[in-house]
């Protein structure tokens, strides 16, 4: 295992973590502020990717496509909020899960109908393609570095938004005591709408950003949804800081575990046993992490006290 | 320690820098009613949570029947006879009134890990439940779903449930809250009777009830016991008047 390989995988893990953070941030707020279990958050991510694919193809420009995707993703999120989710705020978590599950089925199929089941590809913008020499023997894709940059910027932006603006304060208050906020005269419905729309846009942005390097296909949001839930459970529901840390942990542990797990096991086990164990354990690592966190902190690392 | 059934010493609860209760001492003897009063926010309900076992204290000790129960959880304390009622009624709304009380009676059994046999037909449980309901005057409502009861009736259900647990000490958290004139009078009569059988620690706002029932009165202000003694003595204590009763009389 060379240093270069380690650096690559750490960067990959960072990138995955930051992407997860973008998606998880919206979900943890929706859950924290509105106490709403939205299983369909993963499809917002998918929709973002498909919109990006579509707009980039139409306009021929990655940047234009991205610029068009964001407001569309936001509008789509608000549409879903208006048509489906608005009626379910007062409901049991189970009804919310039922409805969002139905939404997943519908949207995955709709996407297949409109764009076909074959994966779409989105061309990378020229100035971001190519590699950068980080160190001897290490050529790392510029695009991925850009993603890391965007992710960190968004994280900082969210931190400032949540902790240093009035709307952020309302969101934090809403997460601790929604009834009180409402009683204080804040239009809680509008707050919900803003949180929901914003979360949808973030997820859509993540999807759009990832489109050039992953395949855009139906159901791409499903497994990411599960990872996202793992992130917010580890971080503590309702906490942006928790989502950030949880996402980084998940991204790094999953990436490094898959890349180096078998090798590390070789230090203790025979090659065959290490190989088998490595293959079994690697995808399980983040779930083991989550179980461990829940064992010591049944409400996550930074639970928002209600 | 004396012959007190319940002996609380130096009980303290903090939330970070916020001290809710500090150094609280309370004794309750068998067959006596010790009332605890204090302005809102004085830390009364927190104290109830600490004594009942719902909250862990940061300092202090609780002895029950000469046994140190400070480290025990709520179910363990209940099984020893330290039973509480809730300020905001806590019942099982989907079960009938009888079933609510029968479940309490069931808790006195050695084990509820019994998987066969219709519990609804258990004569002994139903009889014990009926008896408790009779005492509080809820017999007529036995078959009604508990969620449909009026506020006053729910309070009585709480007391019936507590009785079915065969308590040694009743920890009552504002049982008079929200009761009408008649209901209050009936409740006072009930507590007068119950007082002779168990020890009672009564947390209350209703001054009439307190002065009619209390053998001992303690005043909790800002988490500290300001004064403690016979009700008549407390009534005229100048410290207490300014801190609490004074405001009350002006209102």
């Amino acid at each position: 295992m060379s240093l270069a390989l380690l650096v690559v995988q750490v960067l990959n893990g960072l990138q995955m973590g930051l992407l997860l953070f973008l998606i998880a941030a919206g979900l943890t707020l929706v859950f924290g502020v509105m106490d709403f279990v939205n299983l369909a958050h993963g499809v917002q991510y998918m929709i973002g990717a498909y919109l990006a694919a579509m707009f980039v193809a139409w306009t021929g420009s990655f940047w234009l496509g991205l610029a068009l995707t964001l407001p569309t993703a936001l509008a789509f999120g608000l549409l879903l909020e208006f048509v489906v989710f608005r009626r379910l705020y007062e409901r049991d978590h189970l009804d919310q899960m039922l409805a969002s599950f139905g939404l997943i089925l519908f949207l995955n199929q709709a996407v297949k109908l409109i764009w076909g089941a074959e994966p779409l590809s989105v061309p990378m913008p020229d100035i971001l393609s190519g590699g950068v020499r980080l160190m001897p023997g290490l050529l790392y894709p510029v695009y991925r570095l850009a993603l890391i940059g965007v992710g960190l910027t968004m994280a900082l932006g969210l931190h400032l938004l949540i902790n240093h603006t009035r709307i952020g304060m309302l969101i934090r208050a809403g997460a601790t005591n929604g009834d009180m906020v409402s009683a204080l005269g804040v239009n809680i419905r509008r707050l919900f709408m803003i949180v929901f729309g914003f979360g949808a846009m973030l997820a859509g942005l993540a999807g759009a950003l990832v489109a050039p390097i992953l395949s855009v296909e139906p159901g791409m949001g499903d497994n990411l949804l599960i990872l996202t839930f793992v992130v917010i459970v580890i971080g503590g529901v309702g906490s942006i800081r928790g989502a950030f840390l949880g996402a980084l942990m998940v991204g790094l542990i999953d990436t490094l575990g898959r890349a180096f797990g078998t090798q590390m096991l070789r230090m203790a086990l025979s090659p065959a046993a290490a190989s088998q164990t490595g293959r079994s354990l690697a995808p399980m690592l983040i779930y083991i992490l989550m179980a461990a966190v829940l064992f010591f902190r049944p409400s996550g690392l930074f639970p928002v006290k209600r | 320690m004396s012959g007190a059934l319940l002996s609380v010493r130096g009980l303290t609860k903090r939330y970070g820098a916020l001290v809710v209760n500090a150094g609280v001492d309370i004794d309750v003897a068998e067959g006596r009613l010790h009332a605890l009063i204090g302005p809102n926010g004085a830390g009364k309900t927190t104290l109830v949570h600490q004594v009942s076992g719902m909250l862990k204290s940061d300092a202090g000790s609780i002895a029950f029947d000469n046994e140190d129960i400070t480290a025990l959880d709520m179910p363990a304390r209940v099984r020893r006879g330290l039973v509480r009622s809730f300020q905001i009624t806590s019942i099982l709304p989907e079960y009938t009134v009888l079933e609510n009380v029968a479940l309490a009676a069931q808790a006195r059994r050695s084990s509820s890990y019994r998987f066969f046999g219709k519990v609804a037909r258990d004569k002994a449980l139903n009889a014990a439940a009926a008896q408790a309901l009779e005492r509080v005057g809820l017999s007529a409502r036995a078959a009604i779903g508990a969620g449909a009861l009026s506020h006053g009736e729910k309070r009585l259900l709480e007391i019936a449930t507590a009785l079915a647990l065969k308590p040694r000490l009743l920890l009552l958290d504002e049982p008079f809250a929200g009761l009408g004139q008649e209901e209050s009078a009936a409740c006072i009569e009930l507590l007068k009777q119950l007082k002779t059988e168990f020890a009672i620690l009564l947390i209350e706002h209703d001054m009439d009830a307190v002065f009619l029932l209390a053998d001992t009165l303690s005043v909790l202000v800002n988490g500290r016991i300001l004064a403690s003694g016979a009700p008549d003595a407390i009534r005229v204590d100048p410290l207490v008047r300014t801190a609490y009763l004074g405001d009350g009389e002006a209102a």
Partner: protein
Amino acid sequence: MKTPAAIIFFALALVPLAAIYGPASYILNLGAHALIFALAALSLDFILGKGAMPSFGHAAFLGIGAYAVVIAASAGVDEILWQFAFASGAALVFALVTSSISLRARGVYYIMSTLAFGQMLYFLAVSLSAYGGDDGVTLASRSTLWGGPALRNDTIFYYVCLAALVLAYGLLETISASPFGRVLGALRQNPTRVEALGYRPFGYRLVATLISGAVAAVAGVLLANQSEFVSPAFMTWQRSGELLIMVILGGIGSLWGAILGAVGFVLVEELLSTVTEQWKLILGPLLILAAMAGRRGHA
């Protein structure tokens, strides 16, 4: 037995008669499939409807049962009765270990915890190339019943599934009416009150989970036999989600409702998929409407 349950079982018992007039093998297999999911949904309703534990990893037990058949068969044990025992035992161990963490968590943390363990089992199955890995394993034939090949007859297999369902229903209904059941039901309504009565919730929730897991594992054994094929796809989180939906649709808590929900879901899914390839486009909104039509208030 409650009247609705009796009616449902009676109707289900008549299905093989209808099979005489149609494509028998298809009807009997679809019917058995529905019964098996009804059994799994029933077990989930026990912890969800009676105990307020919405497990999002219940399909793991189906997988345990199914793989128990594979593992037992590869060790030479083809008898289904032994396989039931083996599957239940494995389910108990799994439930015991995972509940020690899941049951410490409330609300969404519980849900996610059960999901995590379901995922772990799924990935474990995928990685075990000895048992087919991601592709799964085809069974040589159905298990034996008392040493004989009776289960290969679709009608007999259907009735075996129905018998399992009726027995499980009877068992869970009895337990619900027992002293244990009363505590469990109380835990769903007001856990604080239950503790204030002197009960410790953990033990009751744990035992309920153990019972539920064992029943679902039995369903898994039957599932392996019905499809004569076992793969990790039996225990994806989507599968667990479907089980939850079956219970929610049928009406949480009545036990027979879960049976209705499962049978309905399987049939609607089958019907829609024969009508159109785009059946999910229809099923999705149906679920959304069902959710909106429900009357359950905020938990």
